[in-house]
């Protein structure tokens, strides 16, 4: 009772709350979590990419006020090479560099390196581009490369003149600056074979260390694998003193056959570290250094003797016994197969063996996220496959064909992963094994690569023109032709239906036809003066013309029937007389057995014609 009272007393308030609740919820949703609010919030959020871009120091793109050009060293012996180096503070891509430099007679200039580095000045980056040429002369003398201009940011920049003094052997010269040394342990390689290239920068003074940055290997048809790069400092003894060398090692892979010339270049700090340590922020100079070219001879991989399962592995590899997670499994249950390959060569870039499609197994390769550098550092790579048996009759895992090329033996080596015995039990769940067995393997797709077709040996389908038939002039006419056929059929059917409802038309038409035939016979009898034939023909014509007026067979008509069709005047006149004569003559010819020569001509032919015309007019 109390409850009821309380409900009653709270009735209006509760009703208002019920009505207001949806509005309150809507308002709360709109203010807090509506899509519009979220969109507005996201619009106010700064794009992280923009933040990253804005955090980068700006690059100075003002045209350089001056450029530097100098020979390093400025004095060389005859036949020795000096580096002609030109530097200017501009982006490399903004500089329009001439193909040929103004070169004095007797001095040869050969391009050897070009590069760009950024130097931080306060909160900005100053681009610094350098062009190196190798200068050499066989004659002593002083050679001067004259002043010339280049374009930077669309404006002319003057490159100052530089002078090189070439002196005979035995004359003291200035020491040359640092030159890089490119060392290749192997210069006779196969395409795709990796080799470690070593760039050495020897210090110019004992116990001095110089930095080297942006080291690059330049060559046509090579791939530099930057995933494996090492830098270290080594001590080198020689010439009565110990010097420190900066070593930069990286992996080089030749991609094409033939002779490939490779050079190394890098920017070295112009200030050696044996002096006072430079304070942070102090502008430091960078000098582009390069190496002498090294030529490597690259041979293509032999086609002869290539084994199944070759995926580009070049080196010397071995495989551990393959590991199967379990050798007792059920149809449809995946099992993992692990294959470990060890060795030396392009291990970091080794492609996994591709299994052949089989109806007994569905094979998926698992992606490995191990970096090439880590693979090379630990000395092995692991390939994992998920195998799903599709039949309980399966007794072993599939063999995975695999091989590599051993450059030392110049031969392909088979490393096929052997089959492992397994016991496959029927699946506990019903399974569409056919669907699994014939499912397209993603690895099989990867193998197929479309190529251009061969020549077609036969012309195949020919045509008179490429223009579609439907666009030619005659096509609409051909399409309209059936219309006329159908129209003709329709007209014929309509006429037939009309004749079916008016059969007398056909009877009269038939009578006229018979009448025409009888008339022809009558005329023939008249020509031949054959009285019997004339009587019979005249009678047949008369009956045929009169029959449509009676529902009777023409042969059943008698003279009275024909006379009944005539008017009284005609019956009494010549026409009636002709009718009677013809019937009488016919009866006489038929029944009179006493007269020998047959009947006489019963009537004049003109009368018979008149009679027939009269009867025909009535049809």
């Amino acid at each position: 009772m109390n409850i009821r009272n309380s409900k009653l007393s709270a009735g209006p308030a509760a009703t208002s709350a019920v009505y207001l609740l949806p509005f309150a919820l809507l308002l709360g949703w709109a203010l807090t979590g509506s899509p519009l609010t979220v969109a507005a919030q996201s619009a106010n959020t700064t794009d992280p990419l923009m933040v990253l871009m804005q955090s980068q120091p700006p690059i100075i793109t003002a045209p350089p006020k001056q450029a530097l050009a100098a020979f390093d060293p400025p004095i060389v012996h005859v036949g020795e090479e000096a580096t002609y180096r030109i530097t200017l503070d501009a982006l490399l891509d903004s500089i329009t560099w001439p193909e040929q430099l103004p070169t004095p007679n007797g001095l040869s200039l050969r391009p050897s390196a070009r590069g760009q580095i950024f130097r931080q000045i306060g909160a900005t980056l100053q681009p610094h581009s350098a062009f190196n040429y190798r200068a050499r002369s066989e004659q002593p003398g002083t050679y001067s490369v004259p002043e010339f201009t280049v374009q930077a940011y669309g404006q002319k920049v003057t490159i100052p003149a530089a002078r090189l003094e070439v002196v005979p052997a035995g004359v003291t010269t200035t020491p040359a600056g640092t030159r890089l040394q490119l060392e290749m342990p192997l210069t006779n390689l196969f395409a795709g074979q990796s080799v470690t290239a070593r760039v050495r920068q020897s210090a110019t003074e004992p116990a001095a260390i110089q930095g080297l940055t942006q080291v690059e290997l330049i060559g046509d048809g090579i791939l530099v694998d930057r995933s494996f790069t090492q830098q270290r400092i080594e001590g080198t003894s020689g010439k009565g003193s110990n010097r420190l060398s900066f070593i930069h090692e990286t992996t080089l892979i030749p991609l094409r056959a033939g002779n490939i010339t490779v050079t190394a270049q890098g920017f070295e700090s112009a200030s050696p570290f044996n002096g006072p340590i430079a304070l942070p922020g102090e502008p430091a100079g960078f000098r582009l250094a390069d190496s002498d070219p090294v030529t490597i001879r690259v041979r293509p991989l032999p086609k002869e003797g290539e084994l199944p399962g070759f995926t580009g592995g070049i080196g010397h590899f071995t495989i551990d016994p393959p590991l199967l997670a379990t050798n007792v499994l059920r149809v449809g249950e995946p099992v993992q197969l692990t294959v470990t390959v060890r060795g030396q060569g392009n291990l970091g870039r080794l492609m996994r063996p591709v299994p052949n499609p089989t109806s007994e197994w569905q094979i998926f390769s698992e992606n490995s996220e191990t970096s090439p550098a880590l693979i090379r550092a630990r000395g092995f790579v692991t390939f994992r496959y998920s195998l799903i048996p599709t039949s309980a009759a399966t007794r072993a895992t599939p063999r995975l064909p695999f091989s590599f090329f051993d450059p030392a033996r110049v031969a392909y080596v088979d490393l096929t992963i052997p089959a492992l015995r397994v016991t496959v039990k029927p699946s506990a769940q019903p399974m569409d094994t056919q669907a699994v067995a014939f499912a397209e393997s993603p690895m099989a797709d990867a193998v197929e690569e479309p190529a251009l077709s061969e020549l077609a040996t036969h012309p195949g389908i020919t045509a008179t023109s490429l223009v579609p038939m439907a666009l030619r002039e005659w096509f609409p006419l051909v399409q309209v032709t059936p219309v006329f056929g159908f129209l003709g059929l329709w007209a014929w059917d309509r006429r037939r239906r009309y004749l079916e409802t008016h059969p007398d038309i056909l009877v009269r038409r038939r009578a006229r036809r018979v009448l025409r035939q009888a008339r022809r016979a009558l005329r023939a009898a008249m020509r031949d003066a054959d009285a019997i034939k004339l009587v019979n023909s005249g009678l047949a014509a008369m009956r045929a013309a009169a029959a449509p007026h009676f529902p009777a067979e023409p042969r059943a008509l008698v003279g009275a029937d024909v006379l009944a069709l005539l008017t009284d005047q005609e019956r009494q006149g010549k026409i009636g007389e002709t009718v009677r004569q013809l019937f009488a003559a016919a009866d006489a010819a038929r029944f009179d057995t006493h007269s020998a020569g047959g009947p006489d001509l019963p009537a004049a032919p003109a009368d018979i014609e008149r009679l027939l015309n009269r009867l025909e007019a009535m049809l």
Partner: protein
Amino acid sequence: MRLPGNFFLAVALLGIGSSAGGAPAPDELYRRGMENYQAGDFALSAKWFGDCVAQQPSSGAWQNLGLAEWQNGQVGEAIVAWERSAWLDPANHAARTNLLVARKIAQLEAPVLAWNEIPSTWLSVNAWAWLGGVSLWAAVGLITLPGLLRWPRATWPQALAATGLALFLLSLPAQIGAHSRARIGFVIGPGAALRLSPTQDAETVMRLAPGEPGRGGEIRGKYVFVRTERSAGWLAREQFEFICPRPVRPREIL
């Protein structure tokens, strides 16, 4: 009327003379094209195959012409030839594969087809026309003839008529698609400039690579209006080749 013997002799001599003095037969041109291709003379091979298709267009000759042009470095001409091969014979798998490979290598897009143009590629354009015509008139005939000829009432004419009518209706979009596909063409030759107006001094909108597809429209003088996926403008007529050569109306020759 009795024709004199000299008349037949003259006709025979005329026939022999025309066959001996005229161009070689298509089969002979086809054979020459194949021989030159196999000998590595792709330019001459392209010439023979070109003469062959000019006399008698055939799917195989267009396919081989495309291969010869491709070996010559004529990407646009090769793509046009393969498209025409597939136009004549949609079941020519080799031509379609060549188009895929060539477009992958040359970084070119295939023409974007409308929904009704896609089924039009399943059969040749003439097959669609025949299918539409025959199915329509067969349906009309099967509807009208039983009444006209007073055939006994049966279900099969009605079923066949319904099938024919359905075939006709289903073939209509494909026929329209085949007609609209005839407007597709491809850029041939390097340096094709799409211009704002059909004049030599007009501003260049963009440059098109050989083999790029477009849909041709109005022809004005030496220029044809081309609409590509990226832009539209006027292109020199000699730099745009339709799949189906379009007859030029007299007023378009200016």
